[in-house]
């Protein structure tokens, strides 16, 4: 009995091809998973990591097929099974959890039914038995009042709770192998940590193996025993986490690790203490109209921001940290007047942005620019890059076309794009290049304040660090104040002079990067710090998980619904 037999999963020299254009997604990849082991598959977007996970149980999308190699799961080859046998394999030995909590559960079906669907078909359980088992599992994944939860519908749960429901569904039939395809990428930091802890705990409890697909090296370091690093469909490195990640031997892995946001921005010497702040925000409240319960009952509005007061100094970088629903993007939108505040005021160059109108507003707005998160919808698909950036120039400058071309070319150069990009169209550019064009467009208006609303969250790690460096360089050169909105503490620490923490619309923490990150005063900030997983260099060529704050309390119970 060769060692291979004892393996739970054995993937040898597998290649996967998209039959349409014949594009190679996986090129001759081999990995294996022992019973009860946690194996991570890591790589940037487009590296083929989730394809590898799905291929394991033959769930490749239409038009994509395994062109070479063999896959064995629990001694059986899924590719050779007929429809019924493949289904019972999935129904008994394997389970899967997906990335997007919003569409993970059938919105029109009560949660209980979706959970027990498998048990009753594959394990022949009666309705009562299956419900009983589901209720205990929900209890186990810490869903409040599990009996009632069975009858409720998916949209009545938050993202984090839905991911726990998915976990319960995948583990209900005690599978031998759980495949998790970026289970927590879409979740906030605290919830992410909870779900990961819960998943690994449960898997260990039922002795199942876990194949964890992620792009976050910190998660790999924290939870996996062995790891496979993929780049553009090829396996770059494979082995225990200590050899592959903590003491990187492959150039590609070193590059990834180097791109991690580490270190802290030297705090700027205050240029003259008395320089007036470029932006003063006083008692700012923002609400979104809600729906009426009954036609005559008063309309209950959702409060996004609750009396926020904040000043921003010229040339400073202020990080705004908070989870989804904390109101951070509402704040960003109010500052550039895309949203009208319910009350309070935003003073800029002696005017209250909320009151000013017409030509004066249009003139003032040019000095407050924004870069959005999603590069795909940031550029007008119909316009060339020249036209996009030229729109940033003042209307007066657009008269002379040659002059405009010269200025746009200069701006592109500043953001690291050669002149050949002028005539290209947005769909020909990568995500990173598009963000650079957005920055160039914002610069064209010579703003005094640049708001970056999660500007790097949608980018791969390597691209992310280059964009952050670019912003820092431009800020030094042009002296604009930068308000950097993010949910990632490491990014905030690397780029910001001061950090502000938002929690449910309230400003709970404000201070220099050091004050906030080393001596947090608000419990939420402490929970945030404790939950964040960060990998950093602990010695030349050696990396380790950084214990964030010595006196941070253990991650409190899920105070986040």
């Amino acid at each position, binding site marked *: 009995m060769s060692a291979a037999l004892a393996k739970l999963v054995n993937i040898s020299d597998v290649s996967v091809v998209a039959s349409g254009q014949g594009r190679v997604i996986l090129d001759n990849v081999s990995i294996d998973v022992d019973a009860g082991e946690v194996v991570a598959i890591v790589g940037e977007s487009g590296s083929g990591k989730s394809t590898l996970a799905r291929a394991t149980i033959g769930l490749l999308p239409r038009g994509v097929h395994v062109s070479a190699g063999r896959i064995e799961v629990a001694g059986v080859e899924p590719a050779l099974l007929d429809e019924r046998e493949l289904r019972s394999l999935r129904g008994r030995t394997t389970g899967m959890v997906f990335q997007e909590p919003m569409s993970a559960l059938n919105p029109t079906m009560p949660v209980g039914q979706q959970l027990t669907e498998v048990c009753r078909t594959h394990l022949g359980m009666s309705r009562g038995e299956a419900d009983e088992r589901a209720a205990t599992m929900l209890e186990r994944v810490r869903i409040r009042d599990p009996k009632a939860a069975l009858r409720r519908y998916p949209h009545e749960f938050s993202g984090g709770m839905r991911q726990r429901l998915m976990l319960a569904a995948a583990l209900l039939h005690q599978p031998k192998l759980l495949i998790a395809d970026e289970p927590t990428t879409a979740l906030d930091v605290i919830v992410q940590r909870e779900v990961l802890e819960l998943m690994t705990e449960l898997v260990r409890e039922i002795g199942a193996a876990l194949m964890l697909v992620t792009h976050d090296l910190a998660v790999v370091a924290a939870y996996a025993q062995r790891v496979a690093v993929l780049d553009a469909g090829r396996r770059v490195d494979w082995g225990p986490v200590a050899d592959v990640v903590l003491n990187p031997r492959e150039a590609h892995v070193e590059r990834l690790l180097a791109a991690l946001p580490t270190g802290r921005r030297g705090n700027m010497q205050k240029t003259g203490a008395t320089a007036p702040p470029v932006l003063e925000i006083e008692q700012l409240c923002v609400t979104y109209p809600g729906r009426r*319960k009954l036609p005559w009952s008063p309309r209950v509005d959702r409060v996004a921001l609750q009396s926020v007061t904040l000043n921003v100094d010229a040339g400073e970088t202020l990080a705004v940290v908070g989870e989804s629903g904390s109101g951070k993007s509402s704040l960003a939108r109010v500052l550039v007047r895309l949203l009208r505040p319910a009350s309070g005021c935003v003073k800029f160059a002696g005017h209250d942005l909320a009151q000013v109108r017409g030509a004066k507003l249009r003139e003032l707005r040019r000095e407050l620019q924004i870069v959005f998160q999603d590069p795909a919808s940031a550029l007008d698909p119909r316009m060339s890059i020249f036209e996009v950036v030229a729109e940033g120039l003042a209307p007066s400058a657009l008269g002379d076309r040659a002059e405009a071309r010269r200025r746009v070319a200069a701006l592109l150069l500043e953001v690291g794009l050669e002149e050949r990009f002028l005539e290209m169209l947005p769909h020909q550019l990568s995500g990173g290049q598009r963000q650079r064009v957005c920055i160039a467009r914002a610069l064209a208006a010579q703003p005094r304040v640049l708001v970056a609303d999660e500007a790097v969250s949608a980018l791969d790690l390597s691209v992310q660090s280059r964009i952050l460096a670019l912003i820092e360089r431009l800020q030094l050169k042009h002296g604009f104040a930068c308000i950097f909105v993010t949910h990632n503490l490491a990014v905030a620490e690397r780029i910001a002079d001061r950090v502000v923490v938002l929690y449910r619309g309230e400003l709970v923490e404000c201070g220099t990067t050091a004050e906030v990150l080393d001596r947090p005063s608000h419990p939420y900030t402490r929970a945030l710090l404790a939950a964040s997983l960060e990998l950093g260099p602990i010695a030349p060529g050696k990396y380790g998980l950084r214990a964030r704050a010595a006196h941070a309390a253990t991650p409190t119970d899920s105070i986040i619904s």
Partner: protein
Amino acid sequence: MMLTFILRRVAQGLLTLAIAGTAVFLLIRVIPGDPAQMLVGDVGDPAMVAATRASLGLDRPLPEQWLLFASDLANGDLGTSIMTGQQVREVIMQAFPVTASVVLLATAIAALIGIPAGMWAAWRQGRAADYLLVGITSVLLSVPTFWSGLIVLVIFSVKLGWLPALGYVPLGEDLRAGLIALIMPVGVLVLAELATLARMMRSSTLEVLRLDYITSAQARGVAPWAVLLRHVFRNAFAPTMTTLGLMLGHLLGGVVVIEKIFGLPGIGRLLVDSIVQRDYPIVQGCLLFVAFIFVIVNLIVDLLYAALDPRVRV
């Protein structure tokens, strides 16, 4: 929350009816030609025409006529036909079952065939079944109903003589003859509706199949028919149902062309004939009834939508 949803929809429906009613009132009065002249005929005695106009209330100023029209409408009186003196409500109630029997039967058949076909084509996208369905539906959508109606009439009635060309026999009166009389019109209507429903169902099923919970159901080893029935159908049917509602609402307003070819005394024919005869009360009654049916059908569809999709309910 459900109550708000219903009340808002009902209010919207009433407003639509009010606007539709006024539009109809004005439109019919602007049409040249005068019912009084039609009634008196070619004897052409001016005094007689004037007297008829007065008795029909047509000589009074427009706003006054509108008020009269609105107050009658309020207490459900649609007035009496100028030409036959019959209660408009009665005339409509005679014509509507004709149209309703053809349309409902055709829609039911089209739905029973079209919806599963659409789903199956989406499930086997890119394979033979899918291309076949898309091809057939493209052709069906391109054949005008009046052309297909004529061809069917020539083949089955003139050449083969299987089916009678003689018009409509109410189902209540003689079920067998009634059904035989409906075969051709329903058949032609089914061809047209089938294509639209199948295409709609196919596209909404394709969108649902892309979502994660379908893949996760498959990952949990759920059988294809269970995936299709339990997961895909409920989510894919909602948008198709809205189109079905729109289509049903319009068709119940009278399939004029089919009624003309097969000699069915339905609402469509009644409306066209009464426009030609300038029978104001009947035209107003018909158009209002058509609008009323449309609003009701769509209200029902919205309620079903809420029943199907819990997100709308809460």
